[in-house]
Every structure is written in structure tokens, then in C-alpha cells.
């Protein structure tokens, strides 16, 4: 008797080194950055008025180290950045606290929802440049204008997200808290805030992006110092490498805040989700006889 040979499928060939590199998170990010810089460099060949990456890096080096840009103009990175950061932090704090308060109110009270929900939605649709204009008209060229621009642009993003989060809290946990007569302040700290943490982070992430845009516009229109002012200064001076340099500072700030601060805070707030140790529990179950 003869037995027909069975075809054994060949194992797929291992991916090549380049493909393996591209599939790794670091490899993909580095590749994307290299491609972007390459495309930017190519663009300068087509459009000579666009400053190239090396030119911009040289500008930023002088601006950061306080060196001379030629003539009497010197780099002033830290002065302007610190001013903007102060204004932004204060505006964000006002918008965040106000949004948290109003969001919780809308989430827990039907009356507050009826009174405030539509107003917050209207505020949400207002572009940042409208607030930048309005605050400049109200307060003139003062520090209040950029601070309030940030506060007004961030507030509705936080409020809407927090309200959604509060409404999503399971009624069973509220019922449990009522049955055990847990105080309102304790419920707020241990039930409401952790339950809406995901929504708070989502709101905060959007708020930081729109608030940062808002402060750039406000300082562009009405500032005498700050990142927005300095960006306009180089634009008005027809020095586009300065303009692009500050735009890059602007973008890097958002990326750093998101990746370094928000991601870490989020990981810390949700570390309970990662705590899943099924094998350990099975052993424990046997030990206690269940």
C-alpha cells in the first residue's frame, strides 16, 4: 500500500529587518519624523521662501541661548515662553475648575441641565479667535485678555465631558452610596471624580489644545510679550524662519504636555485597570476553599 505524501505548508518567512523596524512603535515614529523632515527639505527647493529645517534649528538655537540674530535683536525664548506659560496655566485653571463645577452640576441636576446645557453647547461652538477678539475689546492690551481667552475656550470642553461622565455613573453605585449614607463630599471624591476621570482627561486634552491655540491668537492680536507676540514679531519682520521656529515651539509644547504629563497622569489614574492577576486569584481561591 502506498500512502500519498501530505503537503506540509511552509512556515511564513520571518519579516525582513526593515519591515520589522517599521512595525516597531519607535521605528514607525522615527521613520515618520525622517520622512516629514525630508519632505520639508524638498519643499524648500520648490518654494525658496519657506525656511528649511536646518535654518529653523539654527534660529531656535540663537533664540533659546539668547544669542544675536544680527544687529541688536537677541534671542528671548525663556522670557516670552514663561509669560505665556503663566497666562496659559492661569486660564486653564479657571476654565478647568469652572468646567468641572458646571459639568458636575449639569450631570447631577435636571434643572441645571435644562438651564445650562444649551449655553455650554453654544460656547463650545465659539472659535478661539472670537474670544481673542472679544477679550481684547473688553480688556485692551492687558494680561487679562489672553488669560480669559484660554479660560473661555477651555471651559465648555471640560464642562461637556464632565457632564457626560457624571451621567454615565452607574445608578447601582449611587444607590449603594445612598443606602450607606455616604456624605456628598466623600461621594464626590471617591465616586464621582474617579468615575468621570476618563471624561476629564478627554476634556482636558481638547481644552489644552484649543486653549493653547487661543492664547497664541490672543497674544498675536493684543500681546506685548509671549509666544504669540514673538511669533507675530518675526512674521512682521518678514523673517519666516523665526515665525516657523516659534510655530514649532508651539507644537512641541503640546506634544510634550500630552505625552509626558497627561499620559503619565492618566496611567496613574487608571492603574487599577491594569491590576488583573487571574492566576494569582485562582491560587488564592483554592487557599480559602472557594
Amino acid at each position, binding site marked *: 500500500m502506498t500512502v500519498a505524501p501530505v503537503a506540509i505548508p511552509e512556515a511564513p518567512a520571518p519579516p525582513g529587518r526593515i519591515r520589522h523596524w517599521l512595525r516597531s512603535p519607535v521605528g514607525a515614529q522615527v521613520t515618520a519624523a525622517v520622512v516629514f523632515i525630508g519632505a520639508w527639505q524638498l519643499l524648500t527647493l520648490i518654494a525658496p521662501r519657506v525656511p528649511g529645517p536646518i535654518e529653523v534649528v539654527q534660529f531656535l538655537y540663537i533664540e533659546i541661548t539668547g544669542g544675536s540674530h544680527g544687529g541688536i535683536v537677541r534671542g528671548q525664548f525663556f522670557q516670552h515662553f514663561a509669560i505665556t506659560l503663566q497666562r496659559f496655566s492661569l486660564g486653564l485653571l479657571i476654565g478647568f475648575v469652572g468646567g468641572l463645577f458646571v459639568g458636575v452640576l449639569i450631570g447631577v441636576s435636571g434643572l441645571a441641565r435644562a438651564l445650562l446645557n444649551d449655553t455650554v453647547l453654544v460656547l463650545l461652538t465659539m472659535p478661539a479667535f472670537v474670544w481673542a477678539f472679544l477679550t481684547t475689546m473688553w480688556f485692551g492690551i492687558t494680561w487679562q485678555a489672553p488669560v480669559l481667552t484660554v479660560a473661555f475656550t477651555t471651559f465648555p470642553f471640560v464642562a461637556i465631558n464632565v457632564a457626560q461622565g457624571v451621567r454615565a455613573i452607574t445608578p*447601582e*453605585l449611587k*444607590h*449603594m*452610596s*445612598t*443606602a*450607606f*449614607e*455616604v*456624605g456628598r463630599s*466623600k461621594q464626590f471624591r*471617591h*465616586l464621582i471624580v*474617579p*468615575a468621570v*476621570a476618563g471624561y476629564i482627561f478627554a476634556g482636558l486634552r481638547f481644552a489644552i489644545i484649543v486653549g493653547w491655540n487661543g492664547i497664541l491668537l490672543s497674544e498675536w492680536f493684543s500681546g506685548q510679550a509671549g509666544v504669540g507676540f514673538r511669533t507675530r514679531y518675526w512674521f512682521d519682520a518678514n523673517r519666516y524662519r523665526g515665525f516657523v521656529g516659534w510655530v514649532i515651539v508651539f507644537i512641541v509644547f503640546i506634544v510634550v504636555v500630552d505625552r509626558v504629563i497627561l499620559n503619565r497622569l492618566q496611567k496613574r489614574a*487608571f492603574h*487599577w*485597570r491594569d*491590576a*488583573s*492577576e487571574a492566576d*494569582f*486569584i485562582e491560587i*488564592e*481561591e483554592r487557599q*480559602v*476553599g*472557594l
Partner: protein
Amino acid sequence: MAKVAIDRLSKTFPPPTKGGDPVVAIGDISLEVEGNVFVSIVGPSGCGKSTLLNILSGVETPTRGNVSVTEGERPAHLGYVFQDARLLPWRTVMDNMMYVRDDGDAGAAKAARYLDMVGLSHTHEMFPGQLSGGMQQRVGIARAFSVEPDLLLMDEPFSHLDAITARSLRDHLQELWSATRKTVLFVTHDVVEAVQLSDRIIVLAPGGRIFDDITIDLPHPRRAADPKVATLQAEILGRFEEMQPASTPA
């Protein structure tokens, strides 16, 4: 000694659909429970058992009638065990125990003692997601006992668990109750469970009326396999069949 007085209590919910009839969850019941007794409220689904506990705990308000839950001259302090554990998933076991207390270190020692009594002394720093359903429910039971309530309300606490886990938890509950002798109102649809645990069984019928009120005079702790317990279970199940002849297929 806690006292529960229910006087001509009714609870009607609005119609679930437009143009439908209102739903009568509880229909004009009067009842008194007093002393360190374990009382089960038994009945088929939808007869108002859980609604009764929700009214006693203040989560629901009655449509008519009065309820009072007192300890001497003051309102009684309540503990509650739910069908599911209802733990805060983002807080550790010990933090969950402390969520319902307001007394710092002394409270922590007490909470630890009750966790120890249900065999969970090793779980203080673990999150609920790391525990099995049975272990979570034991935390829920320990939490309710740890507030040292005058009256403990338990709403089908073992109905979501498998039979072996439920049996083990019933034994834990009997031990805890024997050690503390709290007044307990225990809602269940399981007659076997009710007979094993209770001094008194109140049987509710559909429409939220009292069908029977049975005193069980057997010493604690009881085992489900005890012949006296089994005989009583069979007798009460027989009465249940009298209550629902219409639902029995011809």
C-alpha cells in the same frame, strides 16, 4: 434592638408603556419585625421584595402607607448587601470598606476584622477586578457587617453566584450572624436558602401582598442537608404551589 414597622404600605410604579397600566409592586402590606432575628422575605420574581428593601433604605419612597426603622428612639443605622457586590472598581478592598465609614484608624481596624471573618485578610490592597465574583460578594458582606448596623438588609446576595460559592457564602453568613446577632431582612426567591438561614419567613405573593408568615424554630447554624431543614423546605415549597396554581401548566 432594631424595630421595623410597616403600616399599610403600597408602592405603584408608572406604566412601563404609554397607555399601559401602572405596576403595583407592593399592595397594602403591614408587618413588624423586632429583635435580633433573621427574617427572610421570599416570593416569586416581581412580587416587590427588592422594592420593599429599597423603601426601607430610603432609596425609594412609598406611594401610600408608612415605614419606620428605629433603634430605640432614634432612626436605625442600616447596612445593605446587594445582588452584586457594588464595589468601587478604582478603590482597593480596604478603601471600599472605608468608603462607608467615617472613623479613620479605629474604623480600619474594624474593617480589617470583618474582612478577616470572611477569609479575605490577604486582599486589603487588591482591587475588586482582581477578585472573583464570590470574593467580591464576601467583601460586600464584610462591608455591610463592618458598619455594625442596627438593621442589615440583604437583597438576594447569592443569586448571581454558582451553587458551590453560594453554599460557602451562606456558611460564612451564618457564622457572621451568629457572632453579631444583627436584625436581618434577607430577600430571596430560594426557599431552601431561606429555611437554612431564617428564624422567620414572610412569603410575598404576586401583587405585593403577604401570603404567609412562617416561624422557624430550629437552632443555628443549620446545614442544608439536615433532615429537619429538608422537611421544612418541602413543606414550604408545597405552600408555594398552593399560591400559584394558575401558573402551573395543565
